[in-house]
């Protein structure tokens, strides 16, 4: 049971990062963006490209960092990948979402995001092929934390968890302490009033997309590190990430973090109770349960 709990937290870290980005976008732009999870795909594949590039340029970078299967090249690639994904997110907004926002209503944006997700997913499949890819083929063995009860963790997952917590903390501090953070939150609450106070709305929207894209890229790379890289990463993660966002409450970064862990833990504990064939339903049963008790999610507020 402890193993399952731990697994849930470790798996949930990736979901938390994805949910953090999504919750910001949903709160700010007020629509359910089903293409957000494809940004994880873009992030994972960009990192793959850069990783190969850096490994080729300098063999030093190809050495693994400590016990992890992550190499120096991959760590560097992560940064580049975050930039690329952030830029992609802004481009998608400019090309599609902004225009739909002006012309249609929320449902149109949701649908446009579905359509966009289809395009991105299949374009990645055409460019990179449909086979499974990995950052590193080495299998890193788990460390035994305790023998009885048997508790195992993989170093990669601990690193993922650590970095996730650090990033979330940074993000929260930024949003709650800095002027920039205040500006962002103001724009999310009341765009017109914020503009009256001199905040550039367009610039804030771009920032949200860049942040969301960057977090998604990080989540994508961690997912690829701990699992594998395929063009359907977006399709597979979109619903657990949505579940995490909704459970935590839209607009709350800490909520996204908690939501990710809740979904991860629930999915792992559920296998103890239900046959594993029902695992895909678990995130939703959680959502329904949470929403029945707290209709705005754990940390969400009533939205206008």
């Amino acid at each position, binding site marked *: 049971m402890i193993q399952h709990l731990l697994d849930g937290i470790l798996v949930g870290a990736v979901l938390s990062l994805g949910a953090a980005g999504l919750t910001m976008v949903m709160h700010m732009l007020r629509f359910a963006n089903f293409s957000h999870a494809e940004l994880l795909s873009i992030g994972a594949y960009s990192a793959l490209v850069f990783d190969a590039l850096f490994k080729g340029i300098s063999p030093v970078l190809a050495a693994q960092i400590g016990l992890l299967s992550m190499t120096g090249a991959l760590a560097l690639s992560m940064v580049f990948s975050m930039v690329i994904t952030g830029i992609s997110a802004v481009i998608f907004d400019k090309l599609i979402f902004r225009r739909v926002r002006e012309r249609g209503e929320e449902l149109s944006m949701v649908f446009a995001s579905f*359509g966009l997700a289809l*395009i991105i997913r299949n374009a990645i499949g055409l460019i990179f092929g449909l086979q499974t890819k990995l950052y590193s083929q080495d299998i890193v063995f788990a460390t035994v934390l305790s023998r009885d009860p048997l508790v195992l963790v993989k170093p990669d997952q601990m690193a993922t968890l650590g970095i996730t917590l650090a990033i979330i903390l940074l993000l929260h501090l930024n949003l709650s302490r800095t002027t920039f953070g205040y500006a962002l939150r103001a724009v999310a609450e009341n765009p017109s009033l914020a503009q009256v106070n001199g905040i550039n709305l367009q610039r804030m929207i771009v920032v949200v997309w860049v942040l969301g894209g960057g977090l998604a890229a990080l989540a994508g790379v961690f997912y690829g590190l701990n699992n594998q890289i395929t063009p359907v990463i977006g399709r597979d993660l979109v619903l657990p990430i949505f579940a995490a966002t909704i459970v935590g409450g839209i607009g709350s970064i800490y909520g996204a973090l908690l939501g990710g862990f809740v979904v991860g833990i629930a999915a792992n504990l559920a296998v103890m109770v239900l046959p594993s064939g*029902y695992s895909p339903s678990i995130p939703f049963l959680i959502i329904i349960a949470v929403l029945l008790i707290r209709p705005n999610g754990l940390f969400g507020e009533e939205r206008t």
Partner: protein
Amino acid sequence: MIGLVSYLVFFATVASILAIAVLGLNLQWGNTGLFNGGVVAFFGAGAYGTLILGGVPQDGQLGGFGLFYPLALLGGMATAGLLAWGVGILTLRLRHDYLAISTFGIAVAFENLMRNAQWLGGGAQGLRGFERPLRAVLGDGFLYNILFLLCVLVLMVLTYRFLETLVASPFGRQLRAIREDETAARSLGKIPARIRLTAFVTGSVILGLAGGLYGTFYAFVSPQDILPTLTFQIWAMLIVGGAGNNKGAVLGAFLIWGAWTASGWALSRFAPIEAQLYTGSIQYILIGLVIVGMLLWRPQGLLPERLVVSQSGRTKT
């Protein structure tokens, strides 16, 4: 020539069945504003319900009651309605996008159930052993397909008429009232929750009808038929055709199903040999572009909702 006609009959049958489903969704979304993300659950309940009630017994499975076909179809519709009633009570009070995700989750849970509970629906192998009605008499050929198409068209027209009447009726006005201004409606003594539930269940019963006809047409249903992609397809049809407009719903069904099948056919016919293996992915990209393009160009759909003015403000002179 005969081949073309035979194919068109087949195509039209599937398009009409899907059109019935879109009509049901139109009642839920277009008229009542309920974002039903789990369309496929009610569709599937109708399909599985009809096949379980009307089929031949299979070992190790529930079902095979061999009921008279119209009863089996009604049974399928009732199953969908019952499921909708339960889901509605739990989730209809939720916000917009939360309702979508919750209903989506119900659909995923339903598919999981049918995939894993082998005693209920045959598991991943699917539910077979269903004989299409009157097949023994009419055989399997062109004649049967034409007659089946006629029956489906009749049902589609009946559903359309029913919904048009509903929308023009006092109940339809109630739906518009709670959609536009719930507080005002409540002040007039209407109970939004009950109205919404009625609309949701009615729409789901229509979805169940479509599902039952679908299962009957293929004489087979499996978890592959009730994946989320069908929800997406039905929604796309409604969005493109025009939410809130029943004619738009039918138009959207034929257009989107036509686009989906025609793009597959065109790619296999005209794409160069080297690209043949990739036509699957290319087709998805084209469909995504169509959806996005449609939303950029005409987000209200091809046939937008006609606003009905029940009484003009002008006094009679």
